[in-house]
């Protein structure tokens, strides 16, 4: 084996030299915003460019792009050239836009591949990117039965290699997504919802749904890659293709940047796409540098080695005093408690779960966690039209009620001792992941608060992957502090609270909730939908299955030289929605 090793090393070294000469390139979803002076530009494309820096604003070329306060505050590009380096917490993964979903690596493909439509960071509404308009029943884009969606494609859009983007590209990619041989985490949802995607003509693509799914436009839009490249590989080979691994000749889309190369295994270098349909981006390169944590990000920002990174909320003060710009914004990531509903666990009793909710002071938990967050009673993203705080029941600290519920469930105190039932003390095993300092503190505060009720709470920590296995397979827990990622359409509830749903980890099942969720996703009218989902939230809140404590707040720190960065937490991947108009002053 020793000699085999030696051979491998020699061969490997040759490969390294080849790899070091390899250049590649990627671009990502960059949506350029409007720079109108009054901020009131509509979707008509009649926007006048701001004249601040004298350079043209990209907006005029991109009619229909989002407008409103953040977009209106964009500056005209004051300087061209320069490279942006973003500190990025996860190591590099695949660049295949069809494979995203399990890991937040999608950040890196956001500026390479555009979607047909995307979420407007100003208001959470949809706006067209590669399409000319968002299909609605009014504009004829959605059929009367709600099953056919027609997208007209933006004319003149080119792939980064200069070839035209057509409806064929869209149809081919959705065909791949539906194929189980393509290693994509989206396949079951695509097959569950979409019957066919056809290119009616080069500028028109038609989606035929299997049933009415009103959240389809929010949840089933993926970054589009060229058919010419994707069709070079069989579906099962796509994941390991040069396209997915990063190849300057293959890894590109219609976005403002395209793949150039991977340096040293942890630096992804993208270069600008001069063919970008909103005009040539100002930055020469967009670089992702893998960094270890917030501390590292802060140090690298201060020394000027990176220009942009996510930092811990507790580091915001330090970043400000170091002269960095910071943005704090609530996100679609929530902090939740997952209760074990199995009857063999103490939490299997609904009254115990309700008592634990009444015995919890959320404000104190949030303060103790040291993290910013927006407390909520509901289960739907704060950014969603269907969000409401008016949920019944809502759980606010009420120790008497908690004690009463526990007594009803048979848990009684003998003297000053802990609560007991049939001679057994009330023991609760609370779990969370050890690599998340906020959640560790949440667990510690809950331990104290529930101890006041007379419960013996043990806090258990393990790494993220092990914890996932615990609550998805072994079921060996009472309560888990975990995070959830939400889509801003209220149908988001279906993936967590519908019977047998993909992320319904505690096998919660309530037929009335199921019926309401089915009704909600088949209803078009927003006000009616909101009422339906509010009813569903009331039921789930009474059952106490996976309550949301708060929506997390993210802090992004940027170098003061970097302009036009408007982070927002409206979806996983829209912090770089206008990367094409970012620029660095000299």
């Amino acid at each position, binding site marked *: 084996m020793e000699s085999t090793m030696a051979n491998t090393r020699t061969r490997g070294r040759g490969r390294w030299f080849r790899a070091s000469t390899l250049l590649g390139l990627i671009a990502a979803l960059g949506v350029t915003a409007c720079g109108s002076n009054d901020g009131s530009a509509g979707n008509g494309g009649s926007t006048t460019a701001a004249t601040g820096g004298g350079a043209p604003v990209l907006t005029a070329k991109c009619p229909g792009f989002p407008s409103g306060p953040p977009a209106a505050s964009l500056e005209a590009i004051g300087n061209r050239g320069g490279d942006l380096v973003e500190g990025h917490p996860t190591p590099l993964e695949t660049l295949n836009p069809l494979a995203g979903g399990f890991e937040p690596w999608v950040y890196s493909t956001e500026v390479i591949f555009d979607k047909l439509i995307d979420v407007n960071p100003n208001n959470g509404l949809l706006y067209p990117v590669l399409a000319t308009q968002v299909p609605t029943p009014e504009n004829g884009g959605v059929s009367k039965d709600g099953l056919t969606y027609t997208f007209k494609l933006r004319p003149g859009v080119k792939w980064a290699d200069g070839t035209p983007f057509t409806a064929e590209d869209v149809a081919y990619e959705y065909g791949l997504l539906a194929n189980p041989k393509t290693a994509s985490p989206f396949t079951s949802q695509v097959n569950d919802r979409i019957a066919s995607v056809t290119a009616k003509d080069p500028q028109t693509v038609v989606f035929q749904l299997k049933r009415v799914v009103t959240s389809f436009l929010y949840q089933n839009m993926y970054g589009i890659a060229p058919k010419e490249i994707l069709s070079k590989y069989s579906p099962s080979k796509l994941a390991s293709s040069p396209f997915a691994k990063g190849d300057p000749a293959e890894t590109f889309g219609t976005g403002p940047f395209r793949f150039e190369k991977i340096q040293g295994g942890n630096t992804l270098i993208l270069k600008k796409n001069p063919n970008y349909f909103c005009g040539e981006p100002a930055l020469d390169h967009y670089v992702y540098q893998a960094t270890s944590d917030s501390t590292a990000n802060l140090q690298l920002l201060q020394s000027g080695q990176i220009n942009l990174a996510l930092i811990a909320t507790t580091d915001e003060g330090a970043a400000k005093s170091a002269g960095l710009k910071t943005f704090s914004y609530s996100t679609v990531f929530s902090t939740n408690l997952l209760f074990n509903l199995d009857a063999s666990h103490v939490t299997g009793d609904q009254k115990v779960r309700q008592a634990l909710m009444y015995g919890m002071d959320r404000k104190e938990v949030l303060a103790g966690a040291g993290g910013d967050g927006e407390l909520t009673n509901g289960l739907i993203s704060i950014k969603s039209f269907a969000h409401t705080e008016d949920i019944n029941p809502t759980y606010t600290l009420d120790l008497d009620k908690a004690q009463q519920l526990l007594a009803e469930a048979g848990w009684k105190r003998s003297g000053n001792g802990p609560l007991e039932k049939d001679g057994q003390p009330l023991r609760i095993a609370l779990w969370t992941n050890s690599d998340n300092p906020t959640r560790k503190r949440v667990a510690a505060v809950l331990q104290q608060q529930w101890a006041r009720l007379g419960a013996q709470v043990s806090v258990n920590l393990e790494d993220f992957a092990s914890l996932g296995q615990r609550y998805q397979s072994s079921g060996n827990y009472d309560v888990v502090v975990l995070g959830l*990622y939400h889509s801003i359409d209220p149908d988001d509830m279906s993936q967590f609270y519908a019977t047998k749903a993909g992320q319904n980890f505690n096998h919660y099942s309530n037929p009335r909730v199921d019926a309401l969720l089915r009704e909600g996703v088949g209803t078009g009218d927003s006000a009616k939908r909101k009422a339906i989902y509010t009813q569903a939230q009331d039921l789930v809140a009474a059952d106490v299955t996976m309550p949301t404590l708060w929506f997390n707040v993210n802090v992004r720190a940027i170098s003061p030289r970097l302009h036009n960065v408007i982070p927002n937490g409206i979806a996983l991947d829209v912090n770089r929605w206008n990367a094409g108009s970012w620029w660095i002053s000299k």
Partner: protein
Amino acid sequence: MRRYVISRVLWAIPLMLGVTALVFVLINVIPGSPVQANPEAAGGGVADAQRLRELLGLDQPIWTRYFIWLGSLVHGDFGTSFRTHQSVTHEIVTRLPNTLALALASFVVAALIAIPMGAYAAMRFNRPEDRVVTFGSIIGVSLPTFWVGLVFILLFATKLHWFPAGGDAPIFGATLSDRARFLVLPAVTIAIPLAAEWTRYVRSRMLEVLPSDYVRSARAKGLNERTVLLKHAFRNARLPLIQLFGLSLPNFFAGALMVETVFNRSGIGRLTYDAAVGRDYPVVMGCVVFVGCLVVLGNLLADVLPAASAPRVRVG
């Protein structure tokens, strides 16, 4: 000599088989999987996770997977990363130069500190200078690497701006001197505990050698102190040191695991760490085989180098 080396290398085969089987079992026994439904990311439910696990072959029993892996390894194929879909050989080899540069630099720094300090302490045996060096080496061994790294970054990078806070080199247009500047803080961080350990070895070896007859004779001949120390005393003290350097070889890679993470450098250490956290089994196994071979090589060098350095030492 040749027979000795060959037999040592052959003995390494069962050793490596045992190590790989053990690590393969351990990493698979740890709960978690490279693909699991992740509530903190878009898309991807339990059913999709199961399908993707089957596509990666993770539904096979552990021993089947081990022998498939071993079979590929015999053909020189280390497998493919679950995360990047690059070959494991590619992943290791692209990071190797960085880690080798770091190991070499920390070796040089550690030796440059340890040899003069150890010799100096031995010459000033039991005097205050000796006590300072001895005490300093205890501190050096005791300081945790990740803490030293963070203090260095705070002091020399963010406060004084003498060195970069992390990374490998400027991303565009890096010159050799740029790379060297990025190397200084991590190399010193790894070198400190090693230097502290080696200083004590050098000191105790020199203490054994200094009272010997040939040193006294050399002094009696009227040779200057420098020649006595370097040509007569140190030459005889260095053999165990060479062994020590050989045995320390894996330490450079172990140190890299921590230091590359703290300093955001790319390298084998960081690769191993990320792969273990992400349950990227093929990459973890590749790194284990790589470092395992280094341990074998280091032990071999520790035995063979003294023989090469001093013909009177015979092995075999």
